[in-house]
């Protein structure tokens, strides 16, 4: 495959190379996971073009990407309904499509619902692996293309054997696309730092009682929620600081609802690996994809507490849906 398989004409709002699950195994070195913020749409897109789960594709935030293909391949676009055209003709979402050398893909701005779309190419984007992953972490300048979002003039290669692969000639559809809306039920497990030692039972009830607006100042590092006041089960942070949200530094799980004083931030895939604030609840893996589709500034989140057993069950159901596409 030529190293000019895809030419970027416009990079869009923020388009990055990502892979799933991202950069694991380096938590002790402070390396964030990165990877697609909506892993479900990303994985479906890969499955539609016949790629293995770990193949790299693009995460397109909001839209604005224009690209020209330098070779024949098969693509699939999944995620927010982004008005997409191939040579000016509408491109269906959640469906694999054969493209030819010289074709031009254009993704206009999504008006929602949803916020990100994922573009998979047969074979996957071929950029160097850094710490075992091709995922872009812009904050650390790691992975993807030079550790940054794509821009005009960039050229991406596809992995060898990209054409005529398992994706075949296109036309494979995914019929179970999730319904996006402005209000999101997001399944969480309470903790690691919740009631009774850090929060009161009433705090946990408050957290799950009503929808929270997601602040416009949200991104892959974290989703900031509208302010609310917790009562806290303790008066201060002891030796770790004056506020009860302070602790001696712990590792942070992606999807953790991190209380910085009285500001709640849901940690995204590019968030820090550790810090000195409590995590009062954690979005479960089967729901963490929703964080990638929530529109900052308008959408609202309601947290739904689930048990570990339920979380694992939900995740298996997602895996089964993706497995059905791949088989």
């Amino acid at each position: 495959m030529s190293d000019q398989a895809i030419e970027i004409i416009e990079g869009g709002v923020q388009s990055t190379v990502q892979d799933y699950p991202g950069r694991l195994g380096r938590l002790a070195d402070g390396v964030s996971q990165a990877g697609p913020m909506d892993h479900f749409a990303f994985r479906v897109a890969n499955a539609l073009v016949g790629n293995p789960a770990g193949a790299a594709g693009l995460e397109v935030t909001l839209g604005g990407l224009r690209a020209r293909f330098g070779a024949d391949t098969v693509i699939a676009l999944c995620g927010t309904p982004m008005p997409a055209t191939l040579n000016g003709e509408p491109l269906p979402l959640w469906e694999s499509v054969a493209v030819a050398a010289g074709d031009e893909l254009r993704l206009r701005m999504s008006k929602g619902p949803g916020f990100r779309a994922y573009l998979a190419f047969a074979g996957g984007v071929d950029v160097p692996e850094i710490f075992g992953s091709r995922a872009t972490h812009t904050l650390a300048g790691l992975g993807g293309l030079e550790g940054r979002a794509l821009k005009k003039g960039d050229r991406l290669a596809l992995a060898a054997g990209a054409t005529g692969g398992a994706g075949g000639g296109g036309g494979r559809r995914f019929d179970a696309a999730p319904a996006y809306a402005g209000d999101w039920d997001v399944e969480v497990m309470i903790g690691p730092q919740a009631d009774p030692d850090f929060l009161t039972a009433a705090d946990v009830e408050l957290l799950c009682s009503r929808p929270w607006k997601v602040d416009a100042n949200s991104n892959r590092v974290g989703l900031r929620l509208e302010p609310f006041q917790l009562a806290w089960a303790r008066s201060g942070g002891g030796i770790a600081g004056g506020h009860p949200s302070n602790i001696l530094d712990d590792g942070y799980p992606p999807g953790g609802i991190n209380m910085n004083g009285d500001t709640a931030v849901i940690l995204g895939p590019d968030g820090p690996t550790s810090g000195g604030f409590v995590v009062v609840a954690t979005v479960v893996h089967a729901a963490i994809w929703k964080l990638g589709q929530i529109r900052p500034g308008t959408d609202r989140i309601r947290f739904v507490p689930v048990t570990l057993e339920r979380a694992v069950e939900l995740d298996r159901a997602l895996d089964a849906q993706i497995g059905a596409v791949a088989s």
Partner: protein
Amino acid sequence: MTASGHDSPIAALREASDGGPKVTFRHAGDQFLLVEYGEMDFDLELNFRVLTVDGILHDRGLDGLVDTGPGFRSNLIRYDPARLAPARLIAELNDIEDAVPAGSELSLPSRVIHLPIAFDDARSREAVERYARAVRGDAPNVADGTNIDYMVAYNGLPDREALYDEVLSTDWWNAFTGFFPGLPFMYPLDPRYALFAPKYNPTRTWTAEGAVGLGGPCVAIYPVESPGGYQLFGRTVPIYDLAGSNAAFRPDPILIKPGDRVRFHRVEEAELDQAFADVRADRYDYRIDEDPFDVEQWLEHCEEVRPEADERRRRREAAAEEVPVP
């Protein structure tokens, strides 16, 4: 179930046993277990235990163990629930606890990494100057274009040289790495030199690569140019190099690992700049000594210097009362 009706985040609790601290196992979603050691005390012995157990856990090669991220007194363990049930992981960790000797008998694999430091360097001054100009003009932690006099006052020290002496007089233990790839959070192994400084408020938008700063009780080295909140006092050579331009980074782009000690030696800034250039040109040899860390010896030393350490702590605390927080 808890009073609010959901499952308790505390999956299991192990009471303190001879020589072993209490261990609290907390669910952090369906793929992570946060394992906390002891109480929330500022006690390096807890960190020695975290790193010891972490090493053994990795050696055992448990199927379904994905990743671990040590914190000061905790370990965030990522697992694949399809292959490793959390109850099985907790059983394994309990088994390791049974096997690990009392805290005082631990010996940890560790390295002493010798790094040159130039105090009050021009690049740190540039960072402070940019901050004072563009972010906050009236910050109490900025005087004469540096944060150094603020740290001197906050710690009740007579002058800048006394601050530099403290930094040079102890090894700095990397308890954990975080915030940015390869950024070590280091604590003094000699309790006499336990410096303290409040962080920037608000944070700084730019810091030079290799800058060395103090935030709370912790010294950090900035692996790359980045924002930051620690009070800057000097600069050292690169500690992170993805390109592997120097031999020291070819086995791993991250130099300082949890459980390593950093020992600073003082150089003039011109010499540091030369060393920086030599690192890039692969002409610089990092001096790194394999040197297991013996906790019993460390405890004996802490006991010997306790009166002096206590006296210094009282002086610091009294001085800090008089100094405004940013």
